[in-house]
Every structure is written in structure tokens, then in C-alpha cells.
């Protein structure tokens, strides 16, 4: 009854027009007919499975994946169908560990990739590639209502009693972890420190968390809750704000003076790639992500390219940041995660105290 590994029918990812979805029966027959787990027979079509975080849905679906399909066909003559799954970064990462057979993963933070390495799914050092395994950048920013009626300009404004803050839930969302880490990091830097009256990072965190009303599962959900009228400000990726604005949303971006650079890694999942026999395609995809064409596509959707040339080219599209710090400045991800999110971590305590009744 249970199917074997499905072979997707040949088609480009961006097939135009209304195409009749495959009847389930055909899928079933296809699945049963295919042999389990074997390498695909030599054919002119290939499949690639990607697991990505929710916030990059638009750039990938609309620009990167179609461009890659074109590029790959020109290079090799093979048509590749890319199936992509999007969701909260942490949740996606765990799904891969649970058995979602992604060939390539693109996550919000390196920690989610590290989880795969710890589970034995990735057998190489993910940071060994060009740009340390990174694919794109963003920064933590605020989205506020049109006209910024509450006059929110910096982290300290998030502690005001008349301000309601939205963020995603760090237990599932990579974006939320970036938000908290950014707040934490900015707290000990100027000008935030003086503006907050010398409050410790833990105290600032606690004050802000007290103003948080809703914690959605993923970064995207969080922004959409804001769009439905909740809250005065939402903490999110800068590119999320830009994508929303492109879609007609009227919120404005406010970039605090000090904020954290978001580094999004991409990696190949050795175990699944070898199981599917798709290593060549997967490596090509990762290589493609580094090309100027892909990087420009990222820039169009509000991400900051890691390619320095393209970054210079497109720097007019993103807001300048006065004091941009990185996770490395805070001591690296494992240190920050342990400090903030362990059972005795600063965030764990702060959220308890913030909402204690």
C-alpha cells in the first residue's frame, strides 16, 4: 500500500498555464512502478528537492528557481524539476531530520544546518564553501504603520507602554531567533544603551517582551498578523518588509541604528542527495546561488547579496545601517543560543517574567 519513492513527471518548474494536476491514481501507479530508492535511470529529466525557510518563498518561487531551471538546461540539456517546501526555518530543519528528503536546504540560520550535521545527514563542513556556506544576507528591521504614527525609531521605543510589538516564536522560527539576538546585541551597544538608561540586555529584553502580544509560528505568519491589523510594529527580516511592500502593503521600514546582520546558509544534504543520486544537480544549484544572476534576483526581492560586486550594484535598494554587527561579534551562534535560549537562558527567563501573572 505504501508507495515507493515517487518519480515526478517531467516538467519545468515554471510551466505556464493551467496544467491539470496529476490524478492521485497516476501518482500511485507511478510510485508503485518505480523501484525504491534507486538512482534515476538516465533520462532527460531530473528532480531536485529543496527545503527553505518561509521568508524566501517569493524570490525562490518567482525568480531563482525558474532562472536555475533555464540555466541548468542551457548548461546540460537536462530539464530539472525543482520541488520546494517552505516553512519556519526551525520546523523545516526538524522535518528534514525526521525524514523529509531534501537534497538542498536553505535555512534562516546556520544553527538549523548544524542540526542536520549533528543528525548525520550532512557529512561535510557546511561552512567550508564559498562565503562560508552563506547564500544571502538580510538585517533585522522593524515594520511600522504608514506614516509611523507612534514614532518608533529604535529598540528602546519597543519598550513603551503605548507600543505593541509582534515577533515570531523563537522555538520554531529562525527569524525570531535573529530578532531576539539583534535586540540582545544592540542592548549593549551605543546608542541603545544610553537610550535605555543603561539597562542590561536582559532587562531590555524583558521590557520589550512585555510588549509582545502575539508570537506566530514563522516569520511570514508574524508579518501577516501585522498586516491583519495587530500590533504597532513587527520585528522581521528587512526583505520580508520589502516583499510585503511590493505586494501592496503600506507599512514602512524602520531600521534601528544598531542591528544584526542575518546570514542565511545553504547546504547540500549528503545522505539524501546520494540516496537519490542527485549530487550533480544539487551542487549545480548551490553554485548557481552564488552567481551574479541569482544574487541580483535576491536583491530584487530585498535580500542583501553576499556577492560584493552585486552588493555594490544594488546597495541603493536597501537601507543603510549605521552600526551593523554580526553574530560572530556576539560570539557565534552556539554561544548566543546557549546564552539566550537554553533552559536557564536569558530569553527563557525573560519571557517567563514578562508574562507572569
Amino acid at each position: 500500500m505504501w508507495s515507493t519513492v515517487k518519480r515526478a513527471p517531467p516538467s519545468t518548474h515554471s510551466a505556464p498555464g493551467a496544467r491539470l494536476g496529476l490524478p492521485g491514481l497516476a501518482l500511485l501507479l507511478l510510485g508503485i512502478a518505480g523501484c525504491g530508492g534507486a538512482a534515476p535511470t538516465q533520462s532527460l529529466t531530473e528532480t531536485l528537492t529543496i527545503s527553505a525557510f518561509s521568508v524566501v518563498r517569493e524570490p525562490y518561487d518567482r525568480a531563482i528557481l525558474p532562472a536555475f531551471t533555464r540555466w541548468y538546461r542551457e548548461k546540460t540539456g537536462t530539464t530539472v524539476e525543482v520541488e520546494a517546501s517552505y516553512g519556519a526555518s526551525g520546523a523545516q530543519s526538524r522535518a528534514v531530520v525526521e525524514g523529509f528528503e531534501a537534497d538542498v536546504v536553505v535555512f534562516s540560520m546556520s544553527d538549523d544546518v548544524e542540526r542536520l550535521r549533528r543528525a548525520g545527514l550532512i557529512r561535510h563542513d557546511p561552512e567550508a564553501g564559498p562565503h562560508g556556506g552563506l547564500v544571502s544576507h538580510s538585517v533585522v528591521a522593524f515594520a511600522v504603520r504608514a506614516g509611523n504614527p507612534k514614532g518608533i525609531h529604535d529598540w528602546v521605543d519597543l519598550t513603551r507602554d503605548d507600543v505593541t510589538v509582534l515577533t515570531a516564536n523563537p522555538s520554531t522560527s529562525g527569524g525570531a531567533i535573529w530578532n531576539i539576538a539583534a535586540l540582545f546585541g544592540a542592548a549593549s551597544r551605543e546608542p541603545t544603551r544610553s537610550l535605555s538608561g543603561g539597562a542590561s540586555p536582559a532587562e531590555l529584553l524583558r521590557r520589550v517582551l512585555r510588549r509582545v502580544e502575539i508570537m506566530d509560528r514563522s516569520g511570514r505568519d508574524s508579518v501577516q498578523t501585522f498586516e491583519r491589523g495587530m500590533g504597532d510594529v513587527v520585528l522581521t527580516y528587512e526583505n520580508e518588509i520589502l516583499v510585503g511592500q511590493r505586494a501592496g502593503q503600506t507599512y514602512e521600514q524602520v531600521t534601528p541604528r544598531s542591528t544584526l546582520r542575518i546570514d542565511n546558509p545553504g547546504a547540500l544534504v549528503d545522505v539524501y542527495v546520494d540516496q537519490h543520486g542527485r549530487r550533480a544537480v544539487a551542487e549545480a544549484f548551490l553554485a548557481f546561488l552564488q552567481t551574479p544572476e541569482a544574487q541580483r534576483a535576491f536583491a530584487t526581492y530585498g535580500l542583501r547579496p553576499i556577492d560584493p560586486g552585486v552588493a555594490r550594484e544594488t546597495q541603493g535598494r536597501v537601507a543603510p545601517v549605521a552600526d551593523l554587527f554580526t553574530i560572530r561579534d556576539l560570539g557565534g551562534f552556539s554561544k548566543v543560543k546557549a546564552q539566550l535560549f537554553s533552559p536557564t537562558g536569558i530569553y527563557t527567563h525573560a519571557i517567563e517574567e514578562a508574562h507572569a501573572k
Partner: protein
Amino acid sequence: MASPSGSVAGSGGGSIVVVWSATDSGAIPTSAPPRLLAPSERPSPRPRAGARTWQRWVGRAFVLGVPLAYLAVLLVGPLLAVVAGAFADGAGAFLGAVTSRWALHGFAMTALMSGVAIVFNTVFGVAIAWTICRDRFPGRAALGGLVDLPFAVSPVVVGLMAMLLFGRQGWFGPALAARGIRVLFAWPAMALVTTFVSLPCVVREVTPVLEAIGVNEEEAARTLGASRAQTFWRVVLPNIRWGILYGIALTAARTLGEFGGVLLVSGGLAGKTETATLVIYRHLEERQDQAAQAIAVVLAMASILLLLAMELLKTKRDRDLDSAGRTR
């Protein structure tokens, strides 16, 4: 029948004492004749016709108005909001959204999930109903409780169950993966989840019919020499067919809207492992509210049709129950 004896014992003065038993529905009350009311207990003279009519109309408006307002706010309002949203960009956009490749694949996937659930739950549902009604063995009562469990289980828990059984570190996951069989994050897990949540539907429909029709006909058939299989196909099945069909319609209705469980185990591959509900979810995430609502409207329409079918089947099923009663 409608519940236990309806003894309307009034307490206090002025109440009417009537006792009847369920077996005598409609029969003349068999208890002691109504006692004589003391003068102080006699009902007061009726108010004048005009005042009473006004009172009655106000009372009636209240009794009718409140639930209708409740339904309007709770049920109709949201429904209209979705329909309005679905057609917000015109009928053309509506049609485009429900015939897009995502939508069509989603409907096909939903149909597949429903189909699998219906097949398994009908076959085993009849068997389970049979066992509950006709078979005697210790623990039979526990079976009934077990069967009803899926209705009360949260979909998240169902998803957790699937992960614990078929995940990479699950009970069966590694063994299946070694044979190249992918269950989790593919349609088999979704089918299992869907079958699980709708398991009780057919059972709970067939059981009372089986109980109602009794064993007389079956025993008669057997004494006349019919084999077990013949008895089942020729005698039992025709008697319970409307119950089965009603159960199937229920299963279909339930599985059309399944979301939480399949969300957890689907893997979210557009065009591959998305049911209609998951397509709705993705459209919402992509800020395509109109498309999401359009598909939701289609699901709702399909369910309304199913509900209408169930109304028809219910009448037939009840007729079966009635006629079963009369053959005694």
C-alpha cells in the same frame, strides 16, 4: 427511542402530572388519572386575546430572533465573508483560482485521501460494526470506546503519532526507508492520518442499523442453508446499505476539510503533497487571499452537496430502520 421515560413530574403547584413510558409513545397514559387541582392551583384565566397576541409575538420574536442572530453572526457572517473574498476580483479570477494547477492537484490529492479513507474505513468499518453487534467476546465494549477515540484526538497528536511511527527515528521509519518506502512527508502518511481521523464514521453509522434489524433474517437464511458469505451479501448488506452510504458520505465530508494532521506530515511540496486545504494555507502565506478563499468556497460547496446527499440518505436509512421494526 427518544430517551428514557419522559415523566414530566411537575413540582409545586399547578403542574400537570403525566407519566408515560417510551414503549407507549402516543398511547394513553397508563398512570393514575390526573389529580384534582386545588383552587389555588388552578391555572389563572387566560389574558385577553389582544394582549396575549402581542405578548406572544414579542415572545416568539425573541425565541426565534436570538438563535437566528447567533447563527447569522457565527455562521453566516464568516461564510459570506469568504464568498465575498473569493469573488472580490470577479468571477474570472475565481475560476482561474480554482482551475489553477495547484488547485486541481489539491483537489485530486484531497480526493485520493478521501478515497483511501473511504475504502479502508468502509471495509473495516462494517467488520468492526459486525463484531460490536454480533460477536461476543471479552473486551468487546472496549472496542467501542477505541473506535470513537479518533474523533476526540487533536490533529497535532495525530501528526505526532505519524512522526513517531514513521519518522527517521521512528518505530517503522528506518525499516521502511531501507526498502525505499517513503511514508512520512509523502502521501501515504497523509492518507493514514486522514483514515485515522475518519475511522469512526462508517462504524457509527452501521452499528445502529445492524442492531435495529436484528438477527432474525440472518438466522432464517442460515437455517435455509445459505452460507455465511451468502447470508452477508444477500441478507445483511442490502439491509445496511443506506447506513453504509451515509457513513461514506460522512467520511467524505470529514476528510474534505482535514487540515491539522496533514499539515504536520505533508512536507508541503506544492503540486506534490498538498491537499486542497494545504493549498489554501499556502495561498494565504503567499498573500493570495482571493485564491485561498476561492478554493475554500469550492470545498464548502462540495460539502454542502455531501450534506444534502446525507439528508437524502438519512431518510432512506431511517426508512430501513422503520421497516426493520415492522417485520417483527
